[in-house]
């Protein structure tokens, strides 16, 4: 299978310097935040790749880069053979590319316009991309889309505030599906939902993927959810991918100490009353990251080399790990 989405050494640097006058008067230096550094991965057609990591690890920035909300500082993103840089153009090929890539956001309260009726919200991508022009046809399509997400055509008359959180997230999914996309980027789609509602949304997303052959990039900090929905998993730490590979491999036999730490930190329902292994330390300040491997201050397997040289992602049997102590050749 060939890659549908390819990221090639993508970096995103934000300028977070103080205003010019402050820099001059207070002699503050310019400062840059490396939100994403040298991230490369492929997503095959029909596959779900999940990105996990703690807050501030850059996973949402990757999502925004792929969908074209940010431009990468370095590197390139290719979707279905087309370079993502063309989305800034206004030409037909740019339109076609944007139609194929849609996004679902975390907060179903903030991502729907409260003044629009649900039918208009769902019809917006159809009208923008001029997929259908006849109003009757649009209404029919909207009813069909609402049916996909287990809502009724009558719900289209209502406003977003008349729906619960789970129903709103289903409206967001219907809107994302309106332009017949091939690739959906889901940024924490279930984090704002209760577990029973989360189960409804996850089941729905799996069914839609099977029926329409969708490709997903799934961003989440919840490892159980990621384990349930994904085919492959990438673990990010401070803007870099530290381990990426098949879900069963990464969860079953984690190689990077950070992946192990994350897995150990998950509460286990089976072990009631038993304390989990708490993790020492916190994520370092991304403005002033540690030298060498960014994980070295928290790492239980730290070697002398970890403070000096940054480990490269080494691929072995389809899994890539960036760690001096656990180079995958020793698997």
């Amino acid at each position: 299978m060939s890659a549908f989405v390819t990221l090639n050494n993508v970096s995103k640097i934000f300028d977070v310097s103080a205003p010019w006058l402050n820099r001059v008067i207070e002699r503050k230096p310019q400062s840059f935040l490396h939100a994403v550094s040298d991230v490369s991965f492929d997503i095959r057609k029909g596959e779900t790749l999940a990105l996990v990591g703690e807050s501030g690890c850059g996973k949402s920035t990757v999502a925004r880069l792929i969908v074209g909300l940010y431009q990468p500082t370095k590197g390139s993103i290719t979707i279905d053979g087309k370079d993502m840089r063309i989305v800034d153009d206004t030409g037909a090929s740019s339109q076609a590319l944007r139609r194929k890539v849609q996004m679902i956001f975390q907060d179903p309260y903030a991502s729907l316009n409260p003044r629009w009726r649900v039918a208009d919200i769902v019809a917006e991508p159809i009208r923008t991309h001029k997929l259908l022009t006849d109003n009757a046809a649009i209404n029919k399509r909207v009813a069909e889309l609402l049916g996909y997400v287990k809502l009724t055509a009558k719900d289209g008359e209502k406003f977003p505030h008349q729906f619960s959180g789970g129903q709103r997230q289903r409206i967001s999914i219907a809107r994302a599906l309106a332009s017949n996309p091939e690739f959906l980027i889901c940024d924490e789609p279930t984090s704002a939902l209760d577990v029973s509602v989360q189960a409804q949304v996850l089941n729905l997303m799996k069914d839609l993927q099977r029926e329409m052959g969708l490709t997903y990039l799934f961003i989440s900090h919840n490892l159980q959810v990621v384990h349930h929905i994904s085919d492959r998993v990438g673990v990010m730490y401070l803007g870099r991918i530290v381990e990426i590979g098949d879900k069963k491999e990464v969860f079953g036999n984690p190689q990077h100490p950070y992946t192990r730490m994350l897995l150990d930190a998950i509460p286990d329902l089976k072990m009631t009353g038993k304390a989990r292994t708490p993790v020492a330390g916190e994520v370092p300040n991304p403005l002033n990251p540690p030298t060498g491997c960014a994980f070295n201050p928290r790492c239980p397997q730290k070697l002398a080399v970890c403070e000096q040289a940054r480990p490269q992602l080494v691929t072995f049997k389809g899994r890539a790990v960036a760690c001096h102590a656990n180079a995958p050749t020793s698997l």
Partner: protein
Amino acid sequence: MSSAPVLEVKDLHIEFPTRRGILKAVDGVSFSIAPGEVLGVVGESGAGKSLTGAAIIGLLEPPGRISSGSIYLDGRRIDNLPYEEMRKIRGRQIGAIFQDPLTSLNPLYTVGKQLTETIQTHLDMNNEQARERAIKLLEEVGIPAARERIDAYPHQFSGGMRQRVVIALALAAEPKVIIADEPTTALDVSIQAQIITLLKRLCRDHGTAVMLVTHDMGVIAETADRVAVMYAGRVAEIGPVSEVIHQPQHPYTMGLMGSIPEFDTHRDRLIQIDGAMPRLDAIPTGCAFNPRCVKVFDRCKAEKPPLLSAGKTEAACWLHAK
């Protein structure tokens, strides 16, 4: 734990009068917590778990009000105390930890100032003693270099460290009960483990009873001794934590447990409870769960089930009527 309960809630009802009638948010909740015990309260948004916690600390936002029922702290009734009396109990005997550590700390005061203020409000100490105690508290909750960091402002701490400060604040006057409302929801999973371990250790050491309100079953599983599952303002099931998790007796608890994705079970679809929790103005007659329940029968639609003994737990379900 056979000792007398430190906190007892009896048949608590909380309602909100609105123009279109009275909404019952909490409908007859009863439970008790023994000293040193952790009672987990779980449920989905709107189940009334946070309101119950707010009622206990006397911080119900008007127009919400306790319409009937009573709350006892160490045998003393506290739900009908005047504001000033309650103010003395709050902080001194009941501590509170809220979800967002950034909003529960005052950004304009240093952490030390906020701690010493709390300590001096409740305990008879001079500035020097209060400061020493504040430093000791910060050390106890695991803040490195507490003596240097005591004069820092909340924004200079990370999220996990801030939540530690909030815990230190809650413990400042050695309360008998702590109401922890979603204390780890705003934190990353690795930090969450640190905070839970800390909270558990401190409460064991100090013999503090904890009411832990959360929607995260994982947190409950490792922290709580007993758990109460709430649904639409009522307790659906209450019992020892391992029993409720492994052998749930109420159909809602069963569905809730099945909808949590797990590592070692490889099922393709999660068990889902269809529908959503009813709105407060449209709570069904009989058992509030009956329209979503897979085991519903006639009696469920007619009568509200009380808590009935079921296995090793108590479940509010007619299936267990003898």
